[in-house]
């Protein structure tokens, strides 16, 4: 037996039993703990487990293309790759930066700035270091997968504006969703989503934008993809067909290439916009990738406002084009007999002030018809004085001035049609009667956008039909207005506008077209006197207008052109582009009817319509 002193006396059994009881109690405590997690909170933890292992990777839906009225692609989308920098391992990034700099040709400084900017974002969120990767870039990432695991490729859908600057201000551009849009979208957008920012891209964003799909994968604890779970395919955005005619658009673009101003061609019967140009403009392809902040500032502060769509946003003095409104008001109101004549000595005096006619020599004895054809200022000064501002306002507003046309583009401006009420409201004083004299020739406070002028002139020529201009082919129920004009008024005024182009001595005499009843009215709005212009070092102080249409009654096509900062008169500056478009319109129409005729005759097989022939040519 053991050599040390063993105490044979047993210890009280109660102490051992107590140990057993404590064990049972502790076991129950543990089981309650498990019960809480596994039964009470089971749903919560199932949810967390799901989030742990399932990663959702968005599949970007391509935006819908935009086609012209004949189905030619103006805008579409193409898949492209962005290069991502994974930020999980800061040390690894540090080591890789020089190699990335060399391989992808991005400056290390830039990369550091981007990393710095993103340092408060969650670490697992990568940053885009190259939004439009070239083939060489992609090859670089692919071939360095092993030694540069911080780089990753992501497929994105990028917008392609096939013809660059063509129709750019109407089409608009896309960009990353803004913080405020993100907030308003109620979860529809995620940061970094691409949405339409301006123009048609914005207007029809809901149609163009598809529904992003989702690829769900199971990942393990280090984020490695173990297996796919399910796919929700992306639903591509729907295409939209525009009323634009590529051929007419191309002519308008070429004519306006080195000018500043706007041209809009519209089907006068339906309001379909056939061509729309605003110059200067920019290539929206430059916006599909990030626009550097300083570049953006420069664009916004550019005095030539390349971001503006002048067709709907330039509020210009309409100049002599406004005389058509005056002429209509004169006949329609019957306040002045239609036989009213004025002797024009080249100037006239009203309310103690001398007003000049554009023709210093004067027009001599001028009647209603000659007043339009020769655009005699003195005649319309008198008309204005006799009508008064409120009567002018009534007819101008009736013909759509001073209010939006309702075109399907964001950001349309109102223009301004002054009235006594307006002066009272804005300036709190009475209307100066002398101001009416200026308004009578489209100067003074009155301003209008090119689209308003196109619509107003078309309305006069078609007996008071005000169409809703639109760019979407098949726009459901465009809102038409009627401002009814008497047959006599329409006949006399349109005769005048016919005379402008087709009678000897008219201000648009050089625009005459064979076999086409081109009518119209020129205008030359002076922004400042020649003297002031000279002092400011500006030779070009005019806005040259021409609004033309054909045929004389119930026109099919109306074209308004406004050329800004020109030294020429309206007929010279803006007339040719109107003439070219109208001419092209009729040539196409003739070609189409000939083709139709040959198609009806089975012996003559017509070649396929050159729908795609123009698609490849990039408009410069």
């Amino acid at each position, binding site marked *: 037996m*053991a050599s040390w002193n*063993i105490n044979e006396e047993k210890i009280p059994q109660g102490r051992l039993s107590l140990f057993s009881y404590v064990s049972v109690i502790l076991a129950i405590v543990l089981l309650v703990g498990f019960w809480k997690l596994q039964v009470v909170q089971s749903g919560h933890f199932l949810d*967390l487990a799901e989030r742990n292992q399932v990663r959702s990777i968005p599949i970007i839906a391509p935006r819908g293309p935009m086609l012209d009225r004949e189905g030619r692609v103006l805008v579409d989308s193409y898949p492209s790759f962005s290069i991502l920098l994974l930020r999980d391992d800061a040390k690894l990034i540090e080591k890789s930066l020089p190699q990335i700099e060399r391989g992808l040709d991005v400056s290390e400084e830039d990369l550091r700035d981007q990393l710095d900017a993103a340092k408060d974002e969650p670490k697992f969120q990568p940053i885009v270091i190259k939004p439009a990767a070239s083939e060489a870039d992609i090859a670089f990432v692919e071939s360095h997968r092993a030694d540069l695991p911080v780089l990753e490729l992501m497929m994105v859908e990028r917008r392609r504006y096939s013809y660059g600057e063509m129709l750019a201000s109407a089409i608009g551009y896309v960009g990353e969703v803004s913080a405020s849009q993100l907030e308003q979208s109620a979860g529809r957008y995620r940061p970094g989503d691409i949405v339409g920012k301006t123009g048609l891209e914005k207007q029809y964003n809901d149609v163009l934008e598809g529904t992003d799909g989702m690829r769900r994968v*199971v990942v393990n604890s280090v984020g490695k993809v173990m297996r796919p779970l399910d796919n929700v395919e992306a639903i591509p955005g729907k295409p939209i067909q525009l009323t634009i005619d590529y051929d007419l658009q191309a002519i308008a673009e070429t004519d306006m290439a080195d000018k500043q101003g706007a041209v809009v061609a519209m089907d006068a019967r339906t309001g379909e916009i056939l061509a729309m140009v605003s110059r200067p403009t920019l290539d929206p392809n430059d916006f599909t990738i990030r626009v550097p902040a300083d570049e953006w500032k420069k664009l916004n502060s550019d005095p030539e406002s390349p971001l503006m769509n002048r067709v709907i946003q330039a509020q210009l003095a309409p100049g002599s084009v406004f005389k058509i409104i005056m002429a209509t008001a004169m006949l329609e109101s019957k306040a002045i007999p239609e036989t009213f004549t004025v002797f024009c000595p080249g100037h006239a005096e009203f309310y103690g002030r001398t007003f000049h006619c554009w023709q210093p020599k004067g027009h001599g004895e001028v009647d209603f018809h000659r007043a339009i054809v020769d655009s005699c200022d003195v005649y319309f000064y008198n008309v204005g004085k006799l009508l008064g501002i409120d009567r002018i306002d009534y007819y101008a507003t009736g013909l759509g001035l001073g209010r939006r046309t309702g075109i399907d583009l964001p950001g349309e401006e109102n223009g301004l049609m002054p009235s006594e009420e307006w002066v009272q409201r804005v300036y709190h004083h009475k209307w100066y009667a002398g101001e009416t004299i200026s308004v009578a020739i489209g100067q003074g406070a009155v301003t209008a956008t090119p689209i308003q002028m196109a619509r107003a002139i078309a309305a006069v020529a078609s007996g008071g039909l005000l169409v809703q201009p639109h760019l979407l082919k098949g726009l459901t129920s465009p809102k038409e207005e009627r401002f009814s004009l008497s047959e006599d008024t329409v006949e006399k005024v349109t005769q005048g506008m016919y005379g402008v182009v087709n009678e000897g001595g008219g201000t648009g005499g050089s625009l005459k077209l064979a076999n086409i009843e081109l009518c119209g009215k020129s205008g030359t709005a002076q922004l400042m006197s020649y003297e002031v212009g000279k002092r400011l070092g500006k030779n070009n102080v005019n806005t040259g207008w021409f609004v033309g249409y054909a045929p004389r009654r119930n026109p099919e096509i109306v074209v308004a052109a406004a050329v800004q900062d020109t030294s020429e008169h309206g007929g010279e500056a803006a007339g040719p582009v109107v003439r070219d478009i109208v001419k092209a319109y009729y040539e196409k129409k003739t070609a189409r009817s000939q083709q139709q005729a040959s198609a009806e005759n089975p012996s003559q097989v017509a070649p396929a319509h050159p729908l795609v022939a123009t698609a490849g040519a990039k408009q410069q």
Partner: protein
Amino acid sequence: MKERPRVQDFDWNLLAIAGAICSIGVLEIYSATHASAMVGMQSRQLIWIGIGLAGMILISSIDYHALLEQAPALYLFGVGMLLIVLLIGHARSGAKRWIAVGGLMNLQVSELMKLIIIIVLARYLSEVRTDRLTFKDLVKIAALTGVPVALILVQPDLGTAMVLVPVAAVGAFLAGIQWKHWVVGVVLIGLMVPIGWNMRHHLKPYQQQRIRTFVHPEENPRGAGYQILQSQIAVGSGGFWGKGFGKGSQNQLGFVPVRYSDFILAALAEEQGFIGVCVVLLLYLGLILRLVDNAQKAKDRAGMFVVMGVTAILGFHVLVNAAMVIGYMPVTGIPLPLMSYGGSATAFVFLALGLVMNVHMRRFVN
């Protein structure tokens, strides 16, 4: 002298419970690792269980009185080994816990120290002749335990160091503690908590981290609180019936940290549900109660203290591990006995059970 005790006199009920726990453990190790680079772990665990069983038979064949007689020598040997580990033991996993033996396998000296402290305290307490321990006794017990605890702490291995304390605490409680010493003890612990809290800056960074994680698990879900949160997710998502064998996503995709070892209970809870946890915890309760039963039936004080020393260590392991898995305690690196993968830990449990068998077999002897 009566006849020699034989293997047939083992406590077969106890062994059956241990066997059941081991089986569940091996299955869960298989489930947790079969689809990973660590495939085949369950076979190694089986080998360790075999080695443990052999060790158990061996240790049960030496009369525990003979072992207790060698207590001072064993104690010196154990402390000496701990010192050697500290001096020449090579660093592994940031801790000097392992010492190369024979170049073939690694033996955790700390595990051995657990067995030695059981024997040493059983020896000391069996010699006490009073019904209540004197202050001197308590100081001696504290000193005997404190030296190895300190040596293991500086390795550093907080978990194993802590495990030695309940042997002393349970032993002292059973031997009888005077009321005034209870009060002093409680006051001392009450003082230690704030002091320890202020001393936390002297802890190793990983220990500081673990404490911080325990106090604020939500602070950084990808960082420090990650293990506890992932363990809770595994347990909670298992629900009442579990996701099925080999079907726990948290387990299979590696979200559960060291799912084959310290967190094997989380892996099991995910795949077998609350039902499975009940079975396992009841098996452990059965094991503890059976051990207490053995203690009660021990022939003498010494045998009782040996069995209760084993009971204290195993009970502490199960309590701390299970509480950690559900987030009730910080991560301390204490494995679940008989279930967690680990050679020396498993071997230790079987050797400890060998001591119990030793006492059990000799309860009727002389």
